[in-house]
């Protein structure tokens, strides 16, 4: 009877030893594995960039979310197709009501969620003439002009998606969520309705498509965009973005949320501005030599930057970018 007793008493000792020694390392690996975020490709991604500022990726354009005592301020509303998921992503951040949506342009991937997302919110100045409260949709006036149409004509976007409040001044300022917010018009850059949004206390700037880290900037002359306006907007942005300086290795700096692409700072804006300026100069020189648009395209004036920002297919190709600059510079030369 002694032996069985010993087995009973010693077998757990062996097991415990093995579990402790072998399982220790394995356990650590398991814990570390559990710290990795689960890959859910269907879900949008939310990154917190300041204690009360988040960015939601994958909804069409980047969507910035500012949370505070007055509620939620969104910069852009993504595409129509992703509106419900965007709403879910906002609700996962906070149950505060959405009060304001600021549109940085009239592009479908920036305004597409306006109707769905605004309906789920509550305006900062509730409209007493309606029993259907919704969040305020604020934009520069040209955004409304682009999205709507004269009475009787078909508009590009349905009424429910239009901005409910517009402005025509250079800057529209407000103080919401204990935050100074400035919506700044950028004339004729990516389009004629561009704004950038500065959250002064949070020190975050949301740029819309003036900064698009996926592509060369989409300069759409049909919507009032121009190379000169784009460069002026990027230079203005550089005036506002504060780099990490003089303590260059400290993390403090203005954060920049581009229309598309990763969270940036001064360095990315400088690189992007320089890219656009250098290509503008090269095309200007080619125009000065009397080259036609076809000759300019064939000469590959974007070489050095094309592999990073260019594309030969899709909605915005390198040829379209070159053509926009060429025509913009030729037009300016023709006027002078």
């Amino acid at each position, binding site marked *: 009877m002694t032996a069985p007793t*010993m087995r009973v008493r010693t077998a757990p000792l062996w097991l415990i*030893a093995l579990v402790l*020694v072998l399982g220790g390392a394995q356990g650590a690996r398991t814990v570390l594995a559990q710290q990795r975020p689960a890959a859910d490709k269907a879900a949008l991604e939310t990154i917190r960039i300041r204690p009360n500022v988040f960015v939601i990726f994958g909804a069409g354009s980047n969507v910035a979310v500012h949370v505070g005592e007055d509620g939620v301020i969104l910069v852009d509303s993504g595409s129509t197709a992703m509106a419900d998921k965007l709403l879910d992503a906002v609700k996962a951040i906070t149950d505060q009501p959405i009060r304001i949506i600021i549109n940085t342009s009239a592009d479908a991937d920036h305004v597409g969620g306006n109707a769905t997302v605004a309906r789920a919110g509550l305006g900062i100045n509730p409209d007493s003439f309606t029993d259907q409260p919704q969040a305020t949709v604020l934009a520069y006036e040209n955004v409304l002009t682009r999205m709507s149409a004269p009475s009787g004509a078909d508009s590009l976007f349905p009424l429910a998606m239009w901005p409910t409040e517009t402005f025509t001044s250079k800057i529209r300022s407000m103080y919401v969520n204990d935050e100074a917010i400035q919506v700044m018009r950028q004339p004729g850059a990516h389009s004629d309705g561009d704004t950038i949004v500065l959250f002064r206390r949070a020190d975050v700037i949301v740029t819309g498509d003036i900064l698009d880290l996926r592509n060369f900037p989409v300069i759409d002359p049909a919507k009032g965009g121009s190379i000169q306006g784009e460069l002026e907007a990027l230079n203005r942005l550089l005036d506002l973005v504060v780099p990490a300086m003089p303590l*260059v290795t400290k993390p403090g700096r203005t954060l920049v949320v581009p229309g598309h692409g990763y*969270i940036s700072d001064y360095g990315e804006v400088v690189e992007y501005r320089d890219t656009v300026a250098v290509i503008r100069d090269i095309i200007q020189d080619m125009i000065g030599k009397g080259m036609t648009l076809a000759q300019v395209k064939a000469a590959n004036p974007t070489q*050095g930057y094309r592999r990073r920002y260019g594309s030969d297919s899709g909605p915005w190709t390198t040829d379209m970018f070159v053509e926009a600059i060429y025509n913009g510079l030729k037009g300016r030369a023709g006027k002078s």
Partner: protein
Amino acid sequence: MNRMTLTRVFTSLCALLVVSVPASAQIELTGSYSPRLYEDYIERGPGSFLGDFTGMPLTDEGRAKALLYTSNIPSMVERQCLAQSPWVGLYRPLGLRIWSAVDKNGRVISWNLEGDYLRDTIEIWMDGRPHPSPNAPHPSAGFTTGKWEGDTLTARTTHVKTAWIRRGVGIPGSDQSTFTVHMTLHDDLLTIMTIQEDPIYLTEPHVVTRVWQRDPRGSQNGGRVICNTANEVPRLEDSGIVPHYLPGQNPEEAFMIQNYNLPRAAAMGYAETLYPEYRKKIKNVYAPPASCDRYCCGWIERQGLPGAAPGLACNDGGLAEINPFVRSKQSESKRTQPAPAKK
């Protein structure tokens, strides 16, 4: 099996398993290191010539961007204080300080390589954390994780900023670059190898290896993290002007070809020219320049020893006359080296 035997077996097994756990295989890297500057002294010391892209596997895009570069670009107010590549230290003549951060249980969470001028401190995370999302910010130092492979600390850096690989000559690196880094300590010599891959500007991995020596007084970097801008080029201040050459107009493009008789492929950073086979290929067609005033014989030249390039007389532009170390080495070599045979 009695209780005593079981206890012995248990103890032995535990000891065996504990010593075999790979996580404990760490080398102590903490300390200060001095650079061993006999490697690539041109890049780490006086600097390469503009237009010198030798030793680089550049894409056509990389070459084109490098040829748009002028040395006025880093003088732009906007660029003077921008962070440089996290591993640019391998191109610098600076010391290195390394330390570890540990958790409350004494386990190493990260190995840290102190930053120097415009290069942030690199934290090599050892705690298994994942790399951030592609949408996350690209901090000055990028994001680096590491693991021990035997006695070598192997690290991987992602999330870097667009930054020159060699700023002095404008060789570009993109924000899509990743680095694999191997750090190995041999007695008091620390070897760091970086392997940069860049789908935008490099046709193949760019490999750099450097050696530092453990030295209690080796780290000279303290206090070099401050940067203020100044107006270095008047017309660039607050103007939005971006200085650059136009395509085909860089006057330095032919410098290495004209002054060193290098084939264009070698001067302009074509990957083929990195390999020993290329030396064989040009062996019978390459002719050294008739005269050469600088960087002709590498580190050997700096030590005042006879030149290494066959048929080329080393002339360092008078360095030996002003540098007592070189002068003494030259005297020494004249005493110890046989005179070269006259042809």
